């Protein structure tokens, strides 16, 4: 049975919506709920970023400007609602963020999109630094070091929705997230969206089929800043606090990392990236102080060895799955994966011991790791960890041959298939 692409797509969105509805009911801890909310915001933000990088080929180092300004305007609007000066429901507040993001997108985008490539990246960074510096110059609007605090339980409750409990906020975010995902996906299938891909591939040729690439870049940037602002608005509601960090380069870098790790070449890539990175950030940071280091290493490994991100790692397996040949790859993958974990364990051991010493742990107390009690003051654990890491690395390097051989077999099979 084959479904029409439209029905299949409808089904996919339906499943997505269902997962978003059901997930918080399955994971009942408050921790999970706040993480899910964070993920929803990150998904919108990362997708909006990928409208630039993945779809139009514009590398921006300053996308947080639009997210952050969207958040600030939403927070002020929320406070105005609280003071009875503004009469819009909280449910629609993300629109305020979106319009704020869009307005600044029009102003800054007019300047930045005149250039492409590295100059665009540089100007975007310059503007980001400028806005970040301004945030500390105008405490009236940006709230100085403390930021702008707000309260989302304002206005009249509608159907009992007060946005007091986190679960209501989650569903607000989920709703906006779903709408934004659908809108951004639909955009990729419009004339503008298709021409954005053409600009990414070959901006010069675009001029000779009647289009102005600058105009396309500008419009894509504006639309993307709208969604970044929506994400910012949701952030203001979710955290009830907007600080200058929200417009800063760290947030800009973060969204870039999310999109990249997820994979900028596919629409769903940034969704994976946003979910994965949000999860890692919450999960790792509660376990280890060195999580930023692990995260950085992970990013570097992706840049060096999987520049297409998670999405392309998944997609190269699609024809293999279709040809029912995953069995060939399974064992080599398992072996390599286990050996990689051994190598990683050694590395983690070393890093954690260094941190343990550096943070001035009490002398004589052991470091508990992987169920072991290590004494970093003695040489034994160091030699052990080093041996595990190097041994694991050597074995892993060897096991990659298995993976390569298996892939060669799969490729040969696929080629024969295609020839028939």
């Amino acid at each position, binding site marked *: 049975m084959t479904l029409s692409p439209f029905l299949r797509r409808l089904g996919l969105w339906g499943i997505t919506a269902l997962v978003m509805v059901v997930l918080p009911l399955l994971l009942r801890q408050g921790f999970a709920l706040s993480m899910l909310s964070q993920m929803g915001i990150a998904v919108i933000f990362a997708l909006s970023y990928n409208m630039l990088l993945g779809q139009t080929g514009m590398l921006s180092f300053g996308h947080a400007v639009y997210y952050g300004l969207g958040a600030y305007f939403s927070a002020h609007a929320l406070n105005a609602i609280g003071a009875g000066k503004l009469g819009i429901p909280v449910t629609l507040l993300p629109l305020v963020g979106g319009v704020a993001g869009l307005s600044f997108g029009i102003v800054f985008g007019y300047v930045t999109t005149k250039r492409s490539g590295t100059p665009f990246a540089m100007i975007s960074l310059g503007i980001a630094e400028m806005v970040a510096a301004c945030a500390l110059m105008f405490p009236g609007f940006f709230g100085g070091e403390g930021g702008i605090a707000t309260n989302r339980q304002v206005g009249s409750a509608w159907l009992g929705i007060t946005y007091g409990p986190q679960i209501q906020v989650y569903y607000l975010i989920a709703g906006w997230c779903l709408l934004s995902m659908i809108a951004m996906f639909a955009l990729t299938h419009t004339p503008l969206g298709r021409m954005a*891909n053409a600009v990414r*591939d070959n901006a010069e040729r675009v*001029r000779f089929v*009647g289009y102005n690439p600058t105009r396309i870049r500008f419009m894509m940037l504006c639309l993307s800043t709208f969604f970044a602002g929506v994400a910012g608005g949701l952030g203001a509601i979710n955290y009830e606090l907007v600080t200058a960090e929200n417009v800063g380069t760290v947030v800009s870098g973060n969204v870039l990392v999310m999109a990249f790790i997820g994979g900028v070449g596919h629409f769903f890539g940034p969704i994976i990236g946003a979910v994965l990175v949000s999860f890692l950030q919450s999960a790792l940071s509660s376990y280890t102080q060195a999580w930023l280091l692990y995260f950085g290493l992970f990013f570097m490994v992706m840049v060096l060895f999987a520049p297409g991100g998670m999405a392309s790692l998944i997609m190269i397996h699609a024809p293999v799955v279709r040809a029912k040949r995953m069995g060939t790859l399974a064992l080599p993958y398992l072996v390599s994966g286990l050996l990689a974990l051994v190598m990683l364990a050694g590395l983690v051991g070393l890093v954690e011991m260094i941190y343990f010493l550096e943070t001035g742990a009490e002398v004589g107390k052991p470091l508990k790791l992987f169920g072991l009690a290590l004494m970093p003051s003695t040489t034994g654990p160091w030699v052990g960890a080093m041996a595990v890491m190097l041994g694991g690395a050597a074995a892993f390097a060897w096991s990659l041959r298995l993976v390569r051989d298996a892939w060669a077999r799969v490729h040969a099979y696929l080629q024969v298939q295609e020839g028939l």
Partner: protein
Amino acid sequence: MSAPALELRAVHKSFGKTAIINGVDLSIAKGERHAIIGPNGAGKSTLFNLISARFPLTSGDIVLHGEPVTGLPPQEINRRGLGRSFQITNIFPRLSVFENVRCAVLWSMGYRYSFWHRVSALRAVRERADEVVSLIGMERRRDRLAGVLSYAEQRALEIGVTVAGGADVILLDEPTAGMSRSETEDAVELIRTVSEGKTLVMVEHDMGVVFGLADRISVLVYGRVLASDVPTAIRSNKAVQEAYLGAED
């Protein structure tokens, strides 16, 4: 007599102090198939880049359908009915063959920068794009990424992208360069089909192609038009033989 499709008036182009195009006057009538030949470095590709506004002119005028287009940006000239191909294949490598062609169709169908139409729902666009895909004989490659096509296929797609927008003046820059004999024959056939009822200007090195296709030929040497005439007259032109054709055999 109606206005010529394309007219060049005293066109000059210098890069720094080096003059590449040195006063070219050229008039190409509607429906004509016009070939520009000349030795390497004569400025043929530069001339195309000037006509299509890829480079700005140093001085002179370019007139399309009786209207001056000098100084307009490339996209504006394209919208007025001039399509061009490139000597080095210049397509969208990460889009499929069909999408390459569709990108070239969208503007002429009036969809411009729309972000409220769904492209797959635009039947006229799809039909026109598929028409061009089959015109260039690539139905079987329709959904392949352009970047993985063979060289000859990419050259054919290059022509497809050039003509898809319905331009009535078509500039082809060395469409058969680097092709084998049989590939060249296919390309000539393709060029003949796509230029049916249109004005064609092409730069070409293969004399077989030139004399087989062109109604008129202009010989460009050192940035000047040495002669512009029908093929038989060009063949017997003493100056041309000395400057160019003679050197070939």
